[in-house]
């Protein structure tokens, strides 16, 4: 028993150290973002905040059009999320509640794309297609290509399959159409799943990098992820206080969302993962 306790203490110490390492980068980003320029270069480096110098944030918004980039990210991530949920729910409904010719082939065609994230594997041809469409530097290019995914469709299908078949029969007997059943029965019964899926999709879209970097050449169409790199390259080159201020702005929405909704997040992630 004695021995068991001492081992437990050892594990506790290791866990504290692990937590420290995992949380340190974020903690320091916040600390540094409020540090005066000279304090950033002080030796030994500071682990705790010594000032509340908010001017780094003012500077960050000056070096790059951070407000505009933030708005772009918000628009892009919201549209992608909405698009993925809509197409996923519709397609999931088709796969879960209907039998039709070529169902198997269509299912396979969709699932073949599971590991083909277009925003990376096919950046070159996709970029050339965007040029043909005249979509370079527009929200179209940043959103439309990512508005459907195998993962979302599969997640929705799996969830819809858990909803008793009798509900559909009852609704149809009552004179409802398929679409009425979809909107009034299926969707309300899937609220939790949809909420979870939307935050996972939002985080994913907010964090996209390579595609926005390529397809938005004009500053006003860039996203915050790209903005952070711009800050690192800007005049402020070594002004880490300013860079960290921009970084905190870029990571705040998803991190705050994650901390607030962690349980929902984790459950949805595991569910979409293990069933997908």
């Amino acid at each position, binding site marked *: 028993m004695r021995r*068991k306790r001492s081992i437990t203490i050892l*594990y*506790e110490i*290791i*866990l504290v150290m692990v*937590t420290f390492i*995992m*949380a*340190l*980068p*974020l903690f*320091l980003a916040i600390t*540094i973002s409020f540090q005066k320029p000279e304090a950033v*270069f002080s030796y030994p*480096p500071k682990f705790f905040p010594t000032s509340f110098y908010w001017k780094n944030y003012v500077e960050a918004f000056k070096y790059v059009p951070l407000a505009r980039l933030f708005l772009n990210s918000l628009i892009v991530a919201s549209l992608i999320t909405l698009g993925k949920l809509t*197409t996923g729910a*519709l*397609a999931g409904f*088709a796969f879960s509640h209907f039998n*039709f010719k070529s169902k198997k082939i*269509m299912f396979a*065609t969709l699932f073949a794309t*599971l590991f083909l*994230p*277009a925003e*990376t*594997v*096919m*950046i*070159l*041809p*996709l970029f*050339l*297609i965007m040029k043909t469409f005249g979509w370079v530097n527009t929200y179209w290019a940043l959103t*439309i290509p*990512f508005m*459907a995914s195998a993962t979302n469709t599969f997640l929705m299908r799996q969830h819809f399959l858990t909803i008793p078949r009798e509900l559909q029969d009852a609704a149809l007997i009552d004179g409802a159409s*398929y679409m009425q059943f979809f909107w009034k029965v299926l969707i309300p019964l899937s609220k939790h799943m949809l909420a979870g899926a939307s935050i996972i999709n939002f*985080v994913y879209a*907010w*964090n996209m*990098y390579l595609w926005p*970097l*390529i397809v938005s050449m004009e500053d006003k169409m860039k996203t915050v*992820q790209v903005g952070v*790199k711009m800050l*690192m390259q800007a005049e402020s080159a*070594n002004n*880490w206080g300013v860079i960290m201020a921009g*970084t905190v702005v*870029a990571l705040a929405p998803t*991190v705050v969302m*994650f*901390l607030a909704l*962690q349980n929902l*997040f984790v459950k949805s*992630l*595991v569910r979409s*993962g*293990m069933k997908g």
Partner: protein
Amino acid sequence: MKRVLPYLLLLPTFVIITLFIYWPAVYSLRLSFYRITPFGNRMVFVGLRNFQRLFQSPEYLNAIKVTVVYVLASLFLTIFLAFFIALLLNMNLPGNRIFRALIFTPYAISPAIAGVLWSFLLNPVVGHVNYILSKLFGLQVEWLTTKPYALIAVIIATVWKTLPFDIIFYLAGLQDIPQELIEASLVEGANSWARTWKIVFPLLSPITFYLVIMNLVSFMFSSFAIIDVTTKGGPGNYTTTLIYRLYLDAFAFQKIGPAAAQSVILFLIMAIVTIFYFKFGERRVHYQ
């Protein structure tokens, strides 16, 4: 109506995947057979020569090597650490909820920002890592600009960013295993460590399989952001992975034909991973 409706429901999804996944795939296959001037006004059919040249070019072979080392090292470290940390979190030690929340947080942080954060921490002048290393061991390391540290730096940022995802899945898996079994293998006896890896870890093999595939895909592609922010593929081409090579050739050097060939190769790699996943994962991964 019932006849047409399912097709209508599938229409948006299929329009998007056709236009933005299948078409680019076919398009890049076509482009890969041509030599194209940077502005695309002349195209000469060269057959498989783009592919042939790629596999003769030291730069591309180097990118393959870098990718293999980077992916394998990150994969091994992430899986090992994630399982270990999940075990710790599963023991419900005091303060567990806070530890869990903090450890999971990097999940919500993007690869690009992970790159920024680690660029700072590993910065030789202002960074905290070198400060700690010099205090403890008297070491001063030029992390992002020298071999082999640049690759190690990229791997550190990658592992840090990916760990939460893997821990979440291992924790979920551990909760389905009887607690007594885990505790017995962890706490008692001298060989508890070995027993944990021989008993608990194999029980979670479906999860490990799933994570290996997911991590593999993410290391292949989202590594771009981390590398672009931290090392830019340098020093030399030392941290240039396949996706970074593709980006450089396509957008910095405008070598459209060879870049298209690289897309096709990545496409084929992912096709193999997908087939592998469905063939071996489908049944075993279904965990409820």
